[in-house]
């Protein structure tokens, strides 16, 4: 392979990206060396097993990926703003919509939610860390390395261009030659390991590590939604793992699982992809539902309406989510019986979701509503998500779907559920738990600007796309003719897209502004909260979270304690030595070997893949014989950290 095949060449946009990547890397290296931060980076972040720090790293990575995916989106919108535009050629456009979709789902939405789950869930259940802290670090680093492997594709080797669904035979060697599609397969495979481990880790954490007295039906709603999400992850992700492995075999080792030749079955890929893909939709929406439940309850000053109905509808969704996958390919033409059954299951899954919408509305009913920024995002979610839900029911009718399929109507539908659902939740949750992570709130005035610019921009961007879809504009086309008449609405849509981009920049500015000027929190209870994460004495909990594990007597325990004026004060004699897990650099090193292995496989350099895999197994082997039972934090240290006077 020659160097000009190895690096992507010939496009000024890519050269610009090369330069900015280089400058950023040099800048980071310079900063770390000049301010002597290497040891700090290694001790505090790269080797940490603390769930709060891992959560913050997840969120930081997700915000970076939101930027990358957002730039992709704006490039597409620029190309589509006017008919017959020459800004991007068709191959480049295909690569960009592929990376936009993949990054936004796998490397933005999931890590953002998993990051918030990491920070919040152990605190909500009164635990000092997750069940398997070491495994948690492995999860983060495999996700991060998978994301990086996927992201370098646009400067080294070329990006995948077969869509985020990567349907066969389009994704086969014949129609997608070169390393691009391999990046998709390996990047997702490595990141998928991390997700599966997270699923197991948090399932065990929630089942086994709750504070005494916290029965299952006393858990906060966000914890419940995380629990159900983890169950779906554990059962859905292995399908993706297997499907990706089979396609990797097809592309690298000449097998014929999904190929047109050799008795392969191309639609089997689509089938397996959506068997995972539909549960995946619920993996990214259920935690969002949980966050909105917490926020709406807190800022309505009321206990959540229909707590048990919420839980049962989530459990129902978890089961149903495995029964609707065919609605993604009704037009395959499987016949009336199959399409009818999946039409009905799809409409049925809307019922538990509807139940939840009413629960939120009734929680607000007669509540003392405070219009804080997280609450604004939650109300905005209800309004906009319902639009996405209603158009979803339209798409669920198989016969009608033959008209909507592969048009902008569908594109608009899933952006209305994924942005108004997941992205609004990520913003709401980030703002809500920001003081828990960093010790100060984001500025509320700037935050409200972000909300209004983003929400208006979002509707300006996607509402016209429903009508473009009904006018017959297909998705995934890189340009269209003047005569089609799609020009004006596309221009409006592009303007909306850029408004969302501006809102993102204002959000980032708000982070900087609040870092400089925000008033630091003096208590752990920034929003007058209801759940245990707000009960820590300091704004940011110490690394062991709770000096004394709380005893829970019911739902919204902390709130009821405050109402009764009986918040326990910590005394020195409550303190006992605390058992904590030790940091470890092995997860980071293991993930780095995964990168070597993945990169080797992408370019079909088997020597490199084998070296990487030997490294992975080496670290696994090393860990198996490592007897580290953690350490104890002494009573004196806890007393000093908690500032208890003797």
């Amino acid at each position: 392979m020659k160097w000009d095949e190895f690096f992507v060449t010939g496009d000024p946009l890519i050269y610009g990206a090369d330069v900015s990547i280089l400058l950023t890397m040099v800048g980071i290296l310079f900063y770390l060396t000049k301010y002597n931060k290497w040891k700090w980076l290694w001790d505090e972040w790269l080797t940490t097993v603390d769930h709060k720090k891992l959560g913050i790293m997840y969120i930081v990575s997700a915000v970076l990926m939101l930027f990358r995916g957002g730039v992709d989106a704006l490039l597409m919108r620029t190309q589509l703003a006017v008919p017959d535009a020459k800004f991007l050629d068709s191959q480049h456009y295909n690569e960009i919509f592929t990376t936009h979709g993949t990054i936004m789902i796998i490397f933005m939405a999931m890590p953002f939610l998993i990051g918030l789950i990491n920070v919040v869930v152990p605190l909500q259940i009164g635990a000092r860390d997750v069940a398997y802290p070491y495994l948690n670090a492995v999860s983060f680093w495999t996700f991060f390395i998978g994301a990086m492997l996927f992201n370098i594709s646009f400067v080294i080797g070329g990006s995948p261009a077969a869509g985020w669904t990567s349907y066969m035979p389009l994704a086969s060697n014949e129609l997608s030659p070169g390393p691009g599609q391999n990046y998709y397969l390996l990047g997702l495979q490595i990141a998928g390991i991390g997700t599966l481990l997270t699923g197991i880790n948090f399932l065990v954490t929630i089942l086994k590590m709750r504070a005494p007295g916290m029965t299952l039906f006393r858990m906060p709603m966000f914890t419940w939604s995380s629990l159900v999400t983890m169950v779906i992850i554990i059962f859905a992700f292995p399908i993706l793992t297997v499907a990706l492995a089979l396609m990797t075999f097809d592309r690298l080792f000449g097998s014929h699982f999904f190929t047109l030749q050799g008795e392969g079955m191309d639609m089997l890929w689509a089938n397996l992809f959506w068997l995972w893909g539909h549960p995946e939709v619920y993996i990214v929406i259920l935690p969002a539902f949980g966050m909105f439940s917490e926020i709406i309850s807190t800022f309505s000053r009321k206990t959540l309406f229909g707590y048990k109905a919420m839980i049962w509808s989530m459990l129902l969704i978890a089961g149903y989510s495995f029964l609707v996958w065919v609605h993604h390919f009704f037009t395959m033409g499987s016949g009336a019986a199959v399409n009818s059954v999946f039409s009905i299951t799809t409409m049925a899954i809307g019922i538990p979701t509807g139940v939840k919408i009413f629960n939120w509305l009734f929680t607000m009913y007669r509540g003392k509503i405070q219009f804080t920024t997280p609450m604004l995002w939650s109300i905005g979610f209800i309004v906009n998500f319902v639009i996405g839900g209603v158009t979803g029911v339209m798409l669920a009718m198989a016969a009608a779907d033959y008209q909507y399929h592969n048009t902008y109507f569908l594109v608009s539908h899933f952006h209305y559920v994924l942005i108004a659902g997941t992205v609004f939740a990520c913003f709401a949750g980030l703002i809500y738990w920001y003081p828990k992570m960093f010790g100060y709130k984001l500025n509320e005035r700037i935050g409200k600007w972000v909300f209004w610019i983003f929400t208006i921009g979002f509707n300006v961007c996607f509402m016209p796309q429903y009508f473009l879809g009904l006018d017959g504009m297909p998705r995934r086309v890189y340009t269209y003719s003047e005569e089609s008449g799609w020009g004006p609405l596309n221009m409006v849509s592009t303007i909306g897209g850029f408004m969302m981009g501006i809102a993102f920049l204002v959000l980032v500015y708000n982070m900087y502004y609040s870092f400089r000027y925000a008033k630091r929190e003096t208590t752990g209870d920034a929003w007058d909260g209801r759940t245990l994460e707000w009960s820590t004495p300091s704004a940011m909990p110490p690394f062991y979270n709770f000096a004394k594990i709380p005893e829970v007597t019911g739902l919204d325990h902390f709130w009821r304690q405050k109402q009764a004026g009986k918040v326990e004060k910590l005394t020195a004699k409550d303190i006992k030595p605390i058992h904590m897990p030790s940091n470890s650099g092995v997860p980071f090193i293991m993930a780095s070997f995964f990168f070597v292995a993945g990169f080797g496989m992408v370019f079909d350099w088997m020597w490199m893949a084998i070296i990487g895999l030997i490294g992975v197994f080496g670290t696994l082997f090393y860990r198996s014989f490592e007897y580290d039972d953690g350490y104890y934090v002494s009573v004196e240290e806890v007393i000093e950290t908690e500032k208890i006077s003797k």
Partner: protein
Amino acid sequence: MAKTTAEHHGFPWKHLIGFVLSIVLTLFALWVALYTDLSVTWILIIIFGFAILQAALQLLMFMHVTENSTSSNLTSRVQIGNILFAAFVAIVIVIGSVWVLTAGHAKHDKHDEPKTENHGGSHDSEEHGSH
């Protein structure tokens, strides 16, 4: 947190035997598929048999399926729920996929089938366009 929950009873024979048997079963399935002259149907039946055997083996040897909880009945209820849901998902994946990919017009995705009455129907080529 990192408390040693399971006591170690010497060498983990159970895990080693399970591991070796899993590998043997996999190699045997590979041998049956690649190096025997059996018909496709028989190969499928045999390797499916091995697959089910291996799943059972792993449940027994690694997955604590026989483990009984004495402290609370929550654990055993979670176990049962877990197994039932796993069975549900497995059945949906296998039977669902077979049904979806063989029912109605989807049949023509089987490229190995000789051109019989299922193919060449007047509306068949029309359906092809929607792929």
